[in-house]
């Protein structure tokens, strides 16, 4: 009695402490409001400016400017934030998103400045034996890595290749990453013999070297528009900052980082070509094909492993179980990275696969393999559960009735476990439909070959015109997932009913 009272008091004390913390922590986390006029400016800036802008901001502070905070991200993420009214300045990586912001009243069209430009370069792996000297040479590389066609860098590169008259020759070799960075990664890893990226990106990536710069006339002008936002809390100082960004000291820094200098009103810059958004139909079909293939390919191994794990004890069983379940908890991007390290052309199994004439990255094989690997744990778990639920004594009875083990498996075990196995297949199928992280690393983002629904949605969100198609695919995803889960629930019920032994 005494101890119980004691512990109740202790619990009350704990709750009081937790409450006090809950009240105190948010209060402590709130920054103390700065004195009027001293609040830092909030600048939303494209990710490719991450290295150079803080340097320029320090220059400004040294010459009497205000304190600046930056939020660096892909422009597609920043543009919606620019409409929220708490940021002062937006520096976009392309004019399409800036136009999107202007159309929604987030900035005044007349005030948009074409601040910086960039140059496309052809990069090759640092250890490449031959170096292309012109765009025509790119028809001879094994693969050419570009950013996705909804990302400006991808559109610009395609336009340049078309303008040089070599697009048709290189098109079959083109592999697309979801961003410039992934295209660059593939070149650095030797998965692609060449890539087209921004000049400013090369400096930060080891393992690649620049072969040549693409003449500016070949592609639409690559522009970083900047504008003071309509809802800017500190509009006057934001205008001062924008002016400073176009001043001589700032321009010297930008030039050193590889940017070209524009500083003209955006209206004087020729617009870029329209984006070619991903085709939702092709993504839907590809997703279904990939998920179905992964489900079928996983069936036999899942049955075998599920059966062994359900009925056998062997040394290392825990290890095997852990390895099989690993992709369930591993970040999918890590799974993709490990698969690429294993199956890529410079991966552990790459040479052996090359001898067999098999290429995994960027081919249809890649999303299928990624889907098999991430879906397999669910498959095996379901199959194992289904086999464990079958009373082993049913098999023993069947043996005494003259049925050999293999026949017993076919006549008794498999039929009884079937609904559970089918439920596992449905789960694996659903997981395959949703697979993104491993696929984007291993497979790239290639229309009709590796661009499944999640990759297409991701690409569509990069483009301001992608909303409708993104909703279409999102709807299809939700519908397919609901169907799969309903199917899973039905199959699970069937399994329970099938194993039901007692009279009703």
């Amino acid at each position, binding site marked *: 009695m005494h101890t119980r009272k004691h512990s109740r008091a202790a619990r009350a004390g704990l709750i009081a402490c937790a409450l006090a913390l809950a009240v105190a922590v948010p209060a402590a986390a709130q920054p103390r409001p700065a004195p009027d006029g001293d609040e830092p400016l909030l600048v939303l800036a494209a990710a490719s400016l991450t290295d150079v802008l803080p340097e320029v901001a320090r220059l400004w502070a040294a010459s009497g400017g205000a304190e600046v905070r930056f939020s660096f991200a892909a422009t597609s993420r920043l543009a919606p934030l620019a409409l929220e009214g708490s940021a002062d300045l937006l520096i976009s990586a392309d004019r399409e998103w800036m136009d999107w912001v202007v159309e929604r009243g987030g900035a005044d069209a007349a005030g948009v400045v074409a601040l910086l430009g960039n140059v496309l370069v052809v990069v090759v792996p640092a250890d490449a034996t031959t170096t292309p000297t012109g765009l025509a040479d790119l028809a001879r590389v094994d693969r050419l890595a570009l950013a996705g066609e909804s990302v400006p860098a991808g559109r610009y590169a395609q336009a340049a290749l078309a303008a040089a008259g070599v697009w048709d020759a290189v098109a079959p070799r083109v592999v697309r990453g979801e961003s410039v960075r992934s295209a660059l990664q593939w070149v650095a890893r030797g998965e692609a013999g060449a890539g087209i990226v921004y000049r400013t990106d090369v400096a930060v990536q080891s393992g690649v070297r620049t072969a040549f710069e693409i003449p500016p006339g070949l592609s639409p002008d690559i522009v970083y528009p900047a504008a003071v936002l309509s809802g800017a809390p500190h509009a006057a100082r934001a205008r001062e900052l924008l002016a400073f960004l176009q001043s001589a000291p700032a321009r010297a820094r930008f030039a050193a980082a590889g940017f070209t200098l524009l500083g003209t009103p955006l209206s004087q810059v020729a617009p870029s070509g329209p984006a070619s958004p991903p085709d939702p139909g092709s993504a839907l079909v590809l997703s279904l094909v990939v998920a179905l293939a992964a489900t079928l390919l996983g069936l036999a191994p899942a049955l075998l492993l599920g059966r062994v794990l359900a009925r056998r004890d062997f040394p290392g069983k825990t290890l095997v179980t852990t390895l099989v379940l690993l992709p369930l908890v591993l970040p999918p991007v890590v799974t993709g990275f490990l698969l690429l390290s294993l199956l890529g052309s410079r991966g552990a199994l790459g040479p052996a696969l090359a001898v067999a004439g098999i290429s995994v990255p960027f081919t249809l094989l890649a999303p299928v393999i990624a889907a098999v690997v991430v879906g397999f744990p669910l498959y095996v778990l379901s199959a194992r559960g289904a086999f464990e639920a079958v009373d082993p004594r049913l098999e023993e009875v069947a043996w005494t009735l*003259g049925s050999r083990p293999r026949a017993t498996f076919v006549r*008794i075990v498999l039929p009884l476990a079937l609904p559970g196995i089918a439920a596992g297949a449905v789960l694996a199928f659903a997981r395959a439909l949703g697979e993104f992280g491993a696929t984007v690393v291993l497979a790239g983002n290639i229309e009709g070959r590796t661009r499944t629904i999640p990759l297409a949605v991701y690409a569509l969100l990069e483009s301001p015109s992608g909303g409708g198609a993104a909703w279409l695919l999102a709807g299809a995803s939700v519908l397919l997932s609901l169907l799969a889960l309903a199917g899973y629930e039905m199959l699970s019920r069937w399994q329970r009913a099938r194993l039901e032994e007692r009279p009703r």
Partner: protein
Amino acid sequence: MSAAPFALDVDVSVALGTLALRVRLASECRTVAVVGPSGAGKSTLLRVLAGVERRATGRIAVAGRSWLDSASGAFVEPWDRRVGWVPQDDLLFPHLSVRENLCFGATDAGEVESTAELLAVTPLLDRRPRHLSGGERQRVALGRALLTRPDLLLLDEPFSALDRPLRIDLVGRVRAHALENDIMLVLVSHDEGDAATLAEERWLLLDGELRRI
């Protein structure tokens, strides 16, 4: 081997966790009952005879055929034994109808109807096991075993779900059927009364040993 027909010759040791059995049983009778308290290992003994419990050493010979001989390493698999095993939990195949359960190991599908008649399950032939009562299920399990025409029929607490008079009646009919068809019968029961009524010979399994009573 020139053993007499219906000879049951068993000399096995089993050690499973806390259960240790050392069983010697030699009988010329066609119906043998094994009684003993629950937990004595009666069901395990039947599992050893059926061949589904492999962790037994020693010797088993039924009607002159050797099923187990650890000395020579011989082990006849359960599917080659011609043994009918009716476990205490009837273990009908839940996804098959009563008829399909009966046919599962039947050597002659033509006997299904007459066996169903014998065990009074004819009206149930097209039902699923889950729609049967406990007693009905036990009768179907017995019929399933009988239809394989076994040399040895192992009954574990047969018809425990039935009242005693019904139980005695049914087991009596089964015994008659077994005698007609040259089937040896080993019956396990915790009820000595049942055993006395149904078997020519009774053995007591106690403290891991089998004694004739």
